[in-house]
């Protein structure tokens, strides 16, 4: 896979920045080329593009989003944007629920983690929305387990929380037309899975790390 930035990606990023008037704050870390998993709250289609566009271009070129296969493979345009423009890592949703036995679920889970790990490779970073789906923006939903397993699988990769604020008012779920309000993006301090830390405890801590970056508060 080539890691160059698609010109259409830069264009989309510029448009998203213009519409969202996003103001970026690196509150707990600095932009860095080291491998990272940026994880954030999810309430708008603009979330990924805005977060991606906030990164310096050399980091952007090596940062890929994790996205839902069912949605992004539905139309040729979406497929093109996901595969060619943003080099998205497309994962199938609901596979775990469909598994007929615990063994199969474990196998499916492991293969999803492996897909993400191979997308990380030795120099890429990922953007992940651990809620798994877009919310209304009022609350941050519970985090899926993927973040925890991926963190264990790739312990050298930094886990950087980020909070995207007000994007749910700019382009909410289910709306097609944007309203150009201002938004905020805050990157927090990297977290790690503690030794012997349980999955649920870690996921809740990761969620708190994201929520703690909220600056204005819900509406």
């Amino acid at each position, binding site marked *: 896979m080539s890691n160059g930035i698609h010109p259409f990606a830069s264009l989309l990023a510029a448009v998203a920045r213009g519409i969202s008037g996003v103001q970026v704050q690196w509150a707990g870390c600095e932009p860095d080329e080291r491998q990272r998993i940026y994880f954030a709250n999810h309430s708008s289609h603009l979330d990924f593009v805005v977060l991606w566009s906030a990164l310096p271009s050399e980091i952007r070129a090596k940062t890929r989003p994790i996205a839902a296969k069912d949605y992004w493979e539905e139309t040729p345009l979406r497929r093109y944007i996901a595969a060619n423009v943003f080099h998205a890592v497309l994962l199938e949703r609901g596979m775990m629920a469909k598994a007929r036995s615990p063994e199969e679920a474990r196998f499916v889970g492991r293969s999803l983690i492996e897909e993400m790990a191979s997308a990380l490779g030795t120099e890429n970073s990922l953007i992940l929305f651990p809620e798994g789906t877009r919310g209304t923006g009022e609350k941050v939903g519970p985090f899926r387990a993927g973040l925890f397993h991926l963190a264990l699988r790739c312990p050298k990769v930094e886990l950087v929380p980020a909070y995207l604020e007000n994007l749910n*008012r700019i382009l*909410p779920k289910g*709306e097609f*037309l944007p*309203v150009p*309000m*201002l938004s905020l993006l805050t990157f927090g301090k990297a977290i790690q899975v503690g030794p012997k830390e349980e999955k649920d405890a870690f996921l809740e801590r990761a969620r708190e790390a994201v929520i703690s970056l909220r600056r204005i508060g819900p*509406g």
Partner: protein
Amino acid sequence: MLQAFHDTKLLYLYGGVLLLLVTLTLTGRALKGRRKTAASRATIDNLNARISAWWKMCALFTAAVIVGHVGALVLFGIISFLAMREYMTLVPTRPSDHLTLFWGFFVIMPLQYCSIGLHWYGVFAVMIPALAFTFVPTSIAIEGDTASFLERSAKIQFGLMVCVYCLSHAPALLLLKIPGFQGHAARLLLYLAVVDQISDALQYVWGKLVGRNKIAWRVSPSRTWEGLAGGILSATALGTALWWATPFTPLQSAGMAFTICVFGFAGGLVMSALKRDIGIKDFGVVVEGHGGILDRIDSLCFAAPIFFYLVWYYFTL
């Protein structure tokens, strides 16, 4: 294109503004080094923020005059957009207001500025107060969400009135056909901006110097009756002294400047009350880097329509 710059009186007025800005910038720099107490630091920082905003306004005004009427409309349209963006970001709305807000930003606002450019004065004067006023609540009602219905309709309509309707009267001055004053309308726009902004600043300075009795301490602790009187009187005096740049006699100019000052004061006070209500001190504080446009133009928004209609009624009919 550069026609406006063959207007000697405009150049004098403009030169005066530049001279004042340079003097203020140098004074501001000098004071910055000497500030001691926290209170004086805040005062000087406020002054420097105003001065830097004035430079931007001045640059914008220059650009508007150079590119002509269409350019001025585009530039003021952009200011309206940025102001309304700031306003809508900080005023709570509900998800069901989405489509109404979209119309506000992408249909009503551009239409208002286009109507000036196309000389559709009827549309310009009534679209937002009459048509948007009926459209906004209807659109919200169609969405079917009745929670705080009146509040939501009022909030959106208020934003459109202040950020779009009121402000659009400033560039509309450029299209007024005043007998014997054709081609000089840029001076009127500059006159409005100078009197309004100087009045703002002088109210602040007078308030700091001799302010005792607060007007509405809950709304704005820095506004005093003494500051108001001193600021309005001295800015009116300045406006009177600028009569030569306008179609007014000195006495008329005094009346116009006085009106601009009073309405400008009202704008500042109303927007302060609104900010208190939302729970912020400045529109610029919450969204640093982007914000603060509304903090700077609130008085202009309130002064522009009355000035426009006074000039229109007494000097063009």
